[in-house]
């Protein structure tokens, strides 16, 4: 059995008397030590899915099983990195990380907890900024603190919710490489689920990419997962190599095709489209598309 088993998850949000389905028939298995990226457009329910998998939110139907046990809350061996850093502004970088270490290893001495926090902040290049508060750090540095906090608890499970979404392009690239390095040197295998809207980012970091898109034609239809694609590229990877790599182009093509097909469907709004045709076999010639921008997404109100 897989390490993470997402089984037929359904989630709807209620606004007043109306209820809108966000996730429908979401099923996915992630093996131990695997790095899986879920790629989808903005507002398609990716974050909701991650919150459910991480145990921050309960699904309305279906279940998530991790390591043979159903998820009912955040597990002690799980770390989450959010897009907006989620650091406590009244504590220094060191204390933000120490707080996580203290909660994960309560029987360590305070000195040990501080040493662990310092070590992980140094690992992300923040050795000189230990005492600074989040308000005194740049966006990239704040996300470094958040990443250090995640790795400092020596997690078995790592959930990344668009971790680089709020960063500028250069910072983003540097941090992506850093994350890849941290994953590769971690003491025990880290099973990672990342949410992103960038296919390139997913290619750079993951073992497997799963597209996420609306499962119907209607405006505001719920989302589901498409067929996943393996990324069997050697590591370490670089953005430059990926640009010209043949396999990368094939994976990119597949993901983009899945996503853009659902886009076109909702553009045309055919009355009798197959509602569940998410697993697409079509491969559109999209070589050369490096970064997707989904500004014309019409599937969300």
């Amino acid at each position, binding site marked *: 059995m897989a390490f993470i088993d997402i089984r037929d998850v359904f989630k709807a949000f209620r606004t007043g008397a109306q209820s809108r389905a966000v996730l429908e028939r979401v099923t996915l298995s992630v093996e131990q030590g695997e790095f899986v990226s879920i790629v989808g457009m903005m507002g398609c329910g990716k974050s909701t899915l991650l919150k459910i998998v991480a145990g*921050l939110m309960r699904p309305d139907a279906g279940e998530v099983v991790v390591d043979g046990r159903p998820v009912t809350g955040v597990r002690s061996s799980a770390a989450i990195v959010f897009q907006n850093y989620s650091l*406590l*502004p*009244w*504590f220094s970088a060191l204390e933000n990380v120490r*707080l996580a270490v203290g*909660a994960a290893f309560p029987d360590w001495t305070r000195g040990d907890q501080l040493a662990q926090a310092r070590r992980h902040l140094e690992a992300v290049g923040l050795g000189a900024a230990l005492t600074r508060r989040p*308000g005194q750090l740049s966006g990239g540095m704040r996300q470094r603190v958040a990443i250090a906090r995640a790795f400092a608890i020596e997690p078995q499970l790592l959930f990344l919710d668009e971790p680089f979404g709020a960063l500028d392009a250069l910072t983003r690239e540097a941090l992506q490489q850093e994350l890849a390095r941290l994953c590769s040197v971690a003491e025990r295998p880290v099973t990672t689920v990342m949410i992103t809207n960038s296919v390139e980012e997913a290619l750079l970091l993951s073992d497997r990419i799963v597209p996420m898109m609306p499962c119907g034609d209607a405006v505001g239809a719920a989302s589901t997962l498409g067929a996943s694609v393996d990324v069997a590229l050697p590591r370490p990877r670089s953005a430059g190599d990926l640009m010209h790599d043949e396999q990368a182009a094939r994976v990119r093509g597949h993901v983009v095709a899945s996503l853009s097909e659902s886009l076109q469907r909702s553009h045309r709004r055919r009355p009798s489209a197959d509602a569940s045709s998410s697993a697409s076999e079509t491969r559109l010639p999209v070589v050369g598309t490096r970064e997707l921008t989904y500004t014309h997404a019409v599937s969300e109100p």
Partner: protein
Amino acid sequence: MRIKGAIGILLPATGIVMAAIVWAITSQYVPDLPSPIKTWQESKIYLLQPLEKRGEMDQGIALLAYYSLFRVGKGFLLGALIGTPLGLLLGLSRTLHRMFDPIIQVMRPISPLAWLPLGLVLFRKSEPAALFAIAVCSMWPTVINAAAGVKAIPQDYWNVAKVLRLSRLTTFRKIVLPATLPYLFTGYRLSLGIAWLVIVASEMLTGTPGVGGFLWQEYNSLIYAHILLAILTIGVVGFVLDRLMGLAETKLAFASRVTT
């Protein structure tokens, strides 16, 4: 910069002089109202010997203000000690909030003059009755702000608590309290303002030494200049108190600076 500084002093000074002129003119037409100069002449012994103790009520103005401040401090502290946890609890629990909010809304507008007799009935002595009135009148802004502060904690911080699996106590100490601190201090500032308002009423009714007691006694002795002295003292002390709390508030403003 220098010109701006000069104007910063000059304009308020002009306002004060103008108010004094209006006071002086009014005193010409109202025979019982002492003029500013007469007020000064009759009051200067209190101001120039602020720490002199001549009798129970006949004391220097600083001593009288000190008695009042001490009483206000005790009452305010009592109110804060009850109001802070009560407010935080109401902020944390929707059930409790719905249970007690109507009571709070009804208690809030009750005047200190109404609480004081109840305090006298309950405690039979004027001093605890005064403290009771101060505490029960001044705690509501603390309660309401503490509750509002807890409710305003961004979901992000609750998520941090959940993700890090912080214990209830740690969540309270490391997240709820720091996040609510600026709100708490706004509440304290408002509460202290009310406590200072209540002191006069409670001293007047109970006849205890202090600025309010002094005011009432001088009214009864027909020394109207001292009434004005007491009124001005109350105003100035209240102003200084508010400024001091305001300073404490800005010092803590860093905590409310949400960095996302």
